[in-house]
Each structure stands twice: as C-alpha cells, then as structure tokens.
C-alpha cells in the first residue's frame, strides 16, 4: 500500500496513527486480505482528501477518519468474517480458533463450536496418555460405568474395550469431529449472512 503524503507533518502523524491502528486489528488476517483491507481504507482517505482539497487539511483528515470510524469497530466485522473464510479454506486449527474466538459474541452456535474445538484439542492428550499409561487410559465399560479416558481398573468391575485400537479410534474421532466443526462453521456462516 502506497501511503498518502500530507503537506502538514501533524496530518501525516494522525494518518499514520490511524493506519497503524488498522494494521493492529487486521494483523491476524492473511497477507492478501491485510493488503486489500489497507488499500481500501487508504483509498477512502485519499479520495476524500482529493475531494476536499480546498478545505483545511487537518480538518478534512479528521472528518474522513471520523466517517471511517474507529478501526476497532469498523474492521471488527470484516476481520471476523474473513477469519472464518480463512479457517474453512485452510482447515488450520489456529485460524479456526481465532475465527471462533472473534465470533463468540455472534451467537450460541459459535460458543458450541468453540467448545467442540477445545474437545478436539484434548484428544491428543489422551493419545499421549495412552502411550505413557497404557493400562489406565482407554474405553472402559462394565460394572455400570462408561469411561473414555483415564480409569483405575483395580477398583472397578469394568474392562477396557479398545486395547491397541484406542489410539487409531481416538485419531478417527478427532479427525471426524474436526471436519464436522468446519462443515458446521460453513453452514452457520452462510445462514448468518
């Protein structure tokens, strides 16, 4: 993005401060989305300044920044929406978590999807646990109990069902659940819009 050059140094500082605030808000977006966002904001400022060349430079700059609103508010919806796009396109867990956190206030569905994602993140702990404590981690059934995780077999009548298949089963559940979350996110996103 080519920065706008102002006559007054004070205007340049105010403008740069606004652009820096925008950059802070959109830093979690992809490079392309970030550049697109900044170029568009820059274009609005530039066109307004061109249209008000006869007016006081600082006054015009403050007017357009006022019309654009605080970046934290104006760009919030855009960032949240673009982050969901990035998550469903890349299937990246980091982007999925960022998208869900940014959209937590946009409905109960996002909260539920966030909790499901946290659940997905717990599964690798079970896999590591199974490697360290193979006798205690598993799918325990019997004696009126059902435990998927850590259990003390000596103090109950339950028995472990999966044995060596525990890790592949956990992996399968984890992958299926993850794909399900992404698909649900796609559906929620299209319904919301």
């Amino acid at each position, binding site marked *: 993005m080519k920065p706008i050059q102002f006559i007054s140094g004070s205007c340049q500082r105010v403008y740069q401060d606004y652009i820096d605030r925008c950059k802070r808000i959109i830093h979690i977006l992809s490079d392309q989305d970030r550049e697109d966002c900044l*170029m568009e904001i820059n274009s609005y400022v530039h066109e*307004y300044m061109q249209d008000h060349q006869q007016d006081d430079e600082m006054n015009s700059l403050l007017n357009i920044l006022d019309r654009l*609103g605080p970046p934290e508010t104006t760009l919030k919806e855009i960032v949240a929406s673009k982050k969901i796009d990035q998550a469903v396109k890349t299937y990246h867990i980091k982007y999925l978590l960022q998208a869900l956190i940014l959209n937590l206030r946009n409905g109960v569905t996002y909260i539920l999807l966030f909790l499901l994602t946290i659940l997905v993140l717990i599964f690798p702990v079970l896999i590591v646990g199974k490697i360290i404590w193979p006798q205690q981690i598993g799918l325990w059934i019997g004696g009126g109990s059902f435990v998927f995780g850590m259990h003390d077999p000596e103090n109950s009548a339950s028995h472990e069902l999966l044995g060596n298949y525990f890790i592949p089963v956990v992996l399968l559940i984890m992958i299926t659940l993850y794909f399900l979350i992404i698909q649900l996110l796609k559906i929620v996103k299209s319904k919301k819009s």
Partner: protein
Amino acid sequence: MKNEFLKNWDTQLKKGLLPFYVLSALESKEYYGYELIQGLKAEFGIDVTESTIYPLLIRLMKEDLLTYKWVEQSSGIPRKYYTISEDGKIILDAMKTDLKNVLNKI
C-alpha cells in the same frame, strides 16, 4: 416526540433498504467506494458513511452479489471498483418484486 419516532423509523427503513440501494446504484454503473457514497446521496438522498458502506460491500461480495477490481490511478493509490454480479442482478430483481408487493398492500 412523534417526530422523533418518525425520524427513527425513517433511519431504520433506510438502513434496511441500504443493500437494495447499493445494488440498484451498481446496476447502472460500476463505482468505487467513495464515489458510491456520493452516488447514493445523489440518487436516493441517503447519507451513509464509509464505516457503514465498507462492511456492507464486503458482506455483499461474500454473498457473491458483487465483484470488484482494483484500478491503478496516476496518484499511485488504486481505486476498488465494484460491479453487480449476475447473482446480484437476480437478487435485486427479487428485492424489487418484494418492495412492489409491500407497496401494493399499502
């Protein structure tokens, strides 16, 4: 008091109709963001700010109702020109029908 109620209602109505106004404006020609704001004021008499129009344009693009292209300018600061898509035209026609139905019932 009544005037204030009417003013609020008018604001809400215009806000609700904004996507329709944007699609209508873009039906006749392509616009860049700042120009679109001026166009909406001239054509429909509505005053929208950049903080309203920018997120709306992004939303309409996500719905595939608009397309855009960056056009380089001599200033070195390009303009983002928006155009209504084929899907956008279909939705606009449906919006027009809906509005006509509403107005016919009044």
